[in-house]
């Protein structure tokens, strides 16, 4: 392998990480507060979960294609699409965590004179943390994989190698894209699992 391939792997990996990082940051910023609001609103919950479910079923390549006429080619389109995919696991896990708090615990919190806000911050969210981090973990790992497809719409990242490898039937290029992406996904999975364990309240 020539040294320029290594530099390319490095720079595309960084681009890939950037794509994933921005996506997860935006998805969390939207999904976490939304889930907290939805935890007390069953009707809104059904709508939002329905929407995120549908977003999830659209094949990623098709979603990129749909967004192209509106946002154009490049990173922004990729980030919008990837964010849509990342919403569901975060929303679903956060809701599961909050709603999964033992009703007896919630009832005693209320009966002891805690306000709904105190119950949310001091009881429900701390108890939901393992589930929330698990959601972030799923979202991150799937985004790392899905982001490879973003290269097809010119968003860069490790998918660039895959596009090239497929077009030119070049095994080395395919591996140069697939192996770092897999390593990244495994590292993210391990790292977030570690955080999940550290933050588990009990």
């Amino acid at each position, binding site marked *: 392998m020539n040294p320029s391939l290594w530099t390319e792997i490095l720079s595309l990996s960084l681009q890939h990480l950037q794509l994933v990082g921005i996506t997860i940051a935006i998805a969390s910023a939207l999904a976490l507060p939304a889930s907290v609001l939805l935890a007390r609103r069953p009707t809104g919950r059904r709508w939002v979960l329905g929407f995120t479910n549908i977003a999830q079923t659209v094949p990623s390549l098709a979603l990129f294609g749909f967004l192209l006429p509106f946002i154009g080619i490049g990173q922004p389109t990729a980030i919008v699409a990837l964010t849509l995919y990342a919403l569901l696991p975060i929303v679903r896990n956060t809701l599961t965590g909050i709603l999964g708090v*033992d009703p*007896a*615990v919630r*009832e*005693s*919190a*209320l*009966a*002891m*004179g*805690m*306000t709904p806000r*105190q119950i949310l911050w001091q*009881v429900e969210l*701390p*108890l939901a943390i393992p589930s929330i981090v698990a959601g972030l973990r799923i979202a991150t790992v799937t985004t790392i994989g899905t982001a490879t497809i973003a290269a097809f719409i010119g968003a860069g990242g490790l998918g660039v190698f895959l596009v090239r490898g497929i077009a030119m039937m070049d095994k080395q290029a395919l591996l140069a894209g697939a192996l770092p992406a897999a390593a990244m996904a495994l590292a993210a999975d391990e790292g977030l699992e570690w955080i999940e364990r550290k933050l588990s*309240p*009990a």
Partner: protein
Amino acid sequence: MPPILEIRDVSCELGGRPILRRVDLTVEEGETVVLLGRSGSGKTTLLKTINGLVPATSGEIRFEGRAAAQWDSVAMRRRMGYVIQDAGLFPHWTVEANIGLVPRLEKWEPARVAARVETLLDAVGLPAAEFRHRYPRELSGGQRQRVGIARALGADPPLLLFDEPFASLDPITRYELQRQFLDLRRSVRKTALFVTHDVREALLLASRIVLLHDGALELVATPEEFLAAKTPEARAFLASLEQSGRPN
């Protein structure tokens, strides 16, 4: 001084089904009133209308001489300790944090909270040095329930509400906790409402027994009067007692 708790003509419906039918009850300071009834008699609902977890459909509840509607519900609940079956402790907090909850909510100084926690652990028979830093999952069922009682006593509320607190304990632990309850009542002289379906427990703990049947009060009696009562539900409970031997 007005009675600590007055329940006047309280009815409650849930989903169109009547749960409580025109209940009247006055509780004086220092009493232990046991709400006795079989499952579905409305005794737990009656308890929950008092701290507002279940809204009464009609009628009036007055606590410390003030109508419930005039109370801020959060402030009112902090003056009513609440103990439920399996304690409902916060699993992510230590024993100390659980017991100190209401004092913290009431913004006590940390040192005062710590001292209070120690006093309360002592009062429920758990050595503070050994237990204050434990988590609920590191306690037995009986110990959890003791912590639940200590938590309810946290900021020294004038009224304590108990919802079948000992129902899931083994018979020996239950008996120990009942003894503890009586000791506590002697030492802290609190007013308590205690829900149970166990007639022995009612006879052992009550200064007055309130018998509920199908959402209505059938009988209000001292334990001695209850033993001689002739109403149908009282006889049913007493018959169950004779089947299994007299208490104590």
